[in-house]
């Protein structure tokens, strides 16, 4: 196919038509497919952590632990929720009509920050939980092994998370390089 044939084939594709009513519905934030998913995740996280925070003080002996340990646990959970909120804002305001290469550069910087935040918040979350539950625990060999296994699980999770973000950033950087 020569250039004209390619163009005529491309232009000849007849797209479906959305009505004004359908478009109007799409302008609502609560219909956005990605934002809807993040909101769902945020609601589940908030409900879960609220339930945990409501009962940890009595059920998990929060009252017997120092204020600093309690504060670190709460801070770890707050950091995790704040990070999800940042992700929401990131999806909601991705660009403003700059040239594609400039928009992508900005997007990559923001995603890098988000990815670092993601790893840090996961580490804080793991450290907060571990500190809280192991504080004043009398360690035996079996308990040391259990702790090592739990830490290993967290490390594997972090490694997976790192891989996901590294792959995503690599893909975006390659696209940017291809456009520049």
């Amino acid at each position, binding site marked *: 196919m020569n250039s004209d044939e390619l163009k005529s084939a491309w232009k000849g594709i007849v797209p479906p038509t959305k009505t004004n009513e359908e478009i109007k519905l799409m302008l609502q934030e609560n219909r956005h497919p990605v934002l809807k998913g993040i909101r769902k995740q945020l609601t589940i996280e908030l409900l879960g952590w609220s339930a945990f925070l409501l009962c940890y003080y009595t059920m998990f002996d929060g009252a017997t632990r120092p204020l600093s340990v309690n504060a670190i646990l709460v801070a770890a959970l707050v950091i995790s929720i704040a990070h999800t909120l940042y992700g929401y804002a990131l999806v909601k305001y991705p660009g403003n009509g700059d040239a*594609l290469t400039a928009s992508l550069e900005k997007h990559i910087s923001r995603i890098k920050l988000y990815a670092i935040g993601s790893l840090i918040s996961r580490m804080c979350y793991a450290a907060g939980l571990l500190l809280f539950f192991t504080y004043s625990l009398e360690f035996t060999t079996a308990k040391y092994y259990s702790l090592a296994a739990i830490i290993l699980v967290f490390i594997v999770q972090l490694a997976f998370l790192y891989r996901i973000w590294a792959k995503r950033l690599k893909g975006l950087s390659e696209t940017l390089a291809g456009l520049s």
Partner: protein
Amino acid sequence: MNETAFLTLMAEHQGIIHKICRLYRDSREDREDLFQEITFQLWKSFPSFKGNSLISTWLYRIALNTAIASYRKEKPTIDYVETLPEFAEEPQNEELILRQERLLTAMKQLSESEKAIIALYLDDLSYLQIAEILGISENNVGVKINRIKTKIQQLLIKES
């Protein structure tokens, strides 16, 4: 914000968005989601459009940026066989449909950046406008288009 003006804009230009969705997503559901994401982003950015560039330039920038930047979950590898069912709303001749199927199959095998560039070229945008959308020089646009055209021809030959 002028919703009526935005709806008029969408009525005139939604074909561009549909084609970008077609190019960047494989399943019908993903295309619907991307269309919605692009529409939402356009609506959010609409008040900041000051008319410094053509409306189509602004629209292409946001649509392509959303298609490339938006996160999608990885799915199993799919077979790139195009049948164009949701696009063939008007009667078209068989030869044209066949050509469209072959072209789309080839275009789907390009990288994300190549897809963006060739879509703009096939929509008959000038090199200057493509350069403005991408933020690169006209010469660079020309070089890239030539490379992608060669690659598409090779893919088309491989298909047939």
